[in-house]
């Protein structure tokens, strides 16, 4: 079920990436980011209701949820946050400079001179 959600999120992400609006593009990026995080999270297996807290008394650790992917996803979320904000700022700046939201206007750097 969750893997289908991954697929849906990727589909939505890619579709949004392929739109011409800058804003939609960023939403696409965030969907992709979420999809990837979810993928990482679920690919290591899921354990419900047993978070990885241990103390001296804990013995049977193998029943707890795997904390590793959690840590990885946490890192990835934070990195994704940084990236997302930066791209937001970049697109905003671009809009400020050029006054367009259309990605198809981004042709100048590829044109022959």
């Amino acid at each position, binding site marked *: *079920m969750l*893997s*289908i959600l*991954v*697929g*849906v*999120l*990727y589909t*939505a992400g*890619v*579709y949004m*990436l*392929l739109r011409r*609006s*800058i*804003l*939609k593009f960023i*939403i696409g990026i*965030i969907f992709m980011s*979420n999809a990837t*995080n*979810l*993928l990482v999270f*679920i*690919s290591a297996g*899921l354990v*419900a*209701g*047993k978070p*990885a*807290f*241990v103390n*001296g008394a804990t013995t049977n*650790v*193998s029943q707890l*949820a*795997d*904390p590793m992917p*959690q*840590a990885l996803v946490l*890192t990835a979320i*934070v990195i994704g*946050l*940084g*990236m997302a*904000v*930066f791209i937001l*700022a*970049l697109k*905003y700046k671009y*809009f*400020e*400079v050029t006054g367009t*939201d259309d*990605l*198809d206007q*981004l*042709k*100048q*750097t590829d044109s022959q001179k």
Partner: protein
Amino acid sequence: MLPMLNLVILYFLFALSIFILPKAIKSQKGILIAFLQMAAFVWFVFKVPLVSANNSELLFLKWIPELGLNFEFLLDGLSLAFALLVTGVGVLVFLYAHSYMKSYDNTAKFFFFLLLFSGAMLGLVLSANLIQLFIFWELTTVLSFFLISFFNEKELARKAAFQSLVITFLGGLSLLAGIIVIGSAVDSYSINDWVAGADKIKSSSSYVPGLILILIGVFTKSAQFPFHFWLPGAMQAPAPVSAYLHSATMVKAGVFLLARLSPALGGTDEWTFIVPLFGVITMLVGSYFAITQTDLKAILAYTTINALGVLVLLLGIDTNLSIKAAVLFLFIHAFYKASLFMIAGFIEKKTGTREINELGGLIKSFPITSAIALLALLSMAGLPPMLGFLGKELIYEAKVQSPGFGSMIFIFGFISNVLMFAVSMKVLFKVFLGKAKKTYTVSRFKNTFFVIGPAILVLISLVIGIAPNLFGKWIIEPATNVIYASPVNVELALWHGFNQVLLLSIATVVLGSMLSYILIKYNRVEVLWQKFNTTVFPVNLPELFTKTIESFVAFSVSKTKILQHGYHRYYILSIIVFTAVLLWVQLFVTKGWQFEIPFTFKPFYISGLVFIIMLATLFSVITRSRIAAILSMGVTGYGMALIFLYYSAVDLAITQILSETLIVVMFMLILQRLPTFTKLSSKATKIRDLIVSIIFGTAMTLVTLKAINVNLSSPISEFFMQNSFQKAFGENVVNVILVDFRALDTLGEATVLVIAAVGVSVLLFSKKSKS
């Protein structure tokens, strides 16, 4: 034997030092270099006795032995013959250049490159490792590029330099490939190993492709048909360069290599078919086009092509006679052609033209020069008592006796010789004899260096022509022995009886004289002939070359425009499609889809949650309101946080909520300053994008499903859980991983955030906004 290496190094060091010479000496650098060449020449002369006893010296230095790459300098009959040519002609050319280059600026550059070239050429002919030889080979290519483009502000010179560079570089690549291909058969690049393993090479499957690749290299360098056309173009170079590179040395590099490889690769059917074939064609092309030229240097260039053709032909015939003839002709040609080029340069300097129709009767103004030219032309025409006569006789003999398609070769050789004779006579009568169109005054002393080079060369030619035996024994025989790989007796004599060959020579002279008479007497014949040539041979190779390059560039431009079209979305599209295709291929190949899909709706509230997230996502995609899109994106994010929470990831859920909040806040901050959505894509585009997205999305789903089902090893995280409390003193394993077990990740992550923050501030705070 170290001197050989030192000698080559000396050349390079000396070349570098040209730039730092004190001014007073700097102006005499031509003479200075001539002394260096002289010393080298003498050193080689002293090696003659050694070599004529059929001994050789080898210097072996390890370099990168694993690659088969070593320094191997070999001095034997063949390399000595070439080394003598390189240094001997070098002396004279530098003396000549000393005078010739006086009127130009930047001569330091010129002498630098020319001397470097000299060193590279010397290194080339002394190389016994083929990769080492290739290195020097490429150096000569590059240096000749610099020398041809010496008059760099002339477009023609640049074009010619570029053309010769591309052709010879192409050939160089082919040569390299050939060397590697054949080298892998005997696992060595040393010529000695090649000769020793000749049978192994010839029977291996790589022989034919390797031979062809090497021959392409040889043919480009030695201006064989159909690569010959760069050589006339190269006449844009200053005269010393033409005299040195394009007659005596560089173009002979290919001939040298052919001779070097002859014992290793020669003698097979392929060799005796391909090599003479191209030699004959080149010989004919050279002489045929030489006759209708009117530019003195162009005539010389085409006759050089002819001579190179003859040399290749003789090496290809591969009999002891033909090889003997080849070695002899090598010297003959170097002698007369270098002197003629020098004289041509002299004439151009003094008269301001190279057009033979504008010249005439130069003997009156320049008697000495003209006399030298006369002798050189006689040698070229193959008349006694010059060395050229000897050569021609020997060549005829070789051709007559050549196996295989000997008679054909013989007929073509005869035609070519007739043409060559006519060309020589034409030049002689049109330029030096006949009516003077203008008289030139010359001061006697300034010309010394101009004349001394050609004079010496012609004199040698004359002396050896009359008394050739010593020369034959000492120089020709050792070289022939090396090429033929078995002892050959060389007896040379100017007069060797009244025989078939002499008859041929007489016929050549008679026919040639008639032809040249017609050409000189009736200018119209020549003009008509030229017209005939342009109609019958409409393909102008240099132009074809330029056109090919141009059309290739045009092709590249159009293809690049198609690929680098600038549409950002299509870049993404192509990446996604590429990924999706590869993923699907892999899914099929590894049959990853065959296992069961654990499709359950339990627990139902998670299913409900997933359903809501999907709806939110979908809504965010299709809505036309920006705020709605962002908020539903937020819902997706919070939904994910709930999933995390359910599946035991408390910290993760909190982080997700907070960062999602932050992102939504950021969006809201700039939202009002961005334009509203407008409809930009057509329906067809949307459908296409949708299909691509779905293909990609399903691929990812399947991949995920697969991942859940494969478990190759138990995870390392159990270690963390066991040690988190005891060794790292923390109960929250996730946090302990972040700050202790994998703290380096967190360090990087914090750095990413800081960079992003500073980056955003750099981007948006600006003292002066530039647009």
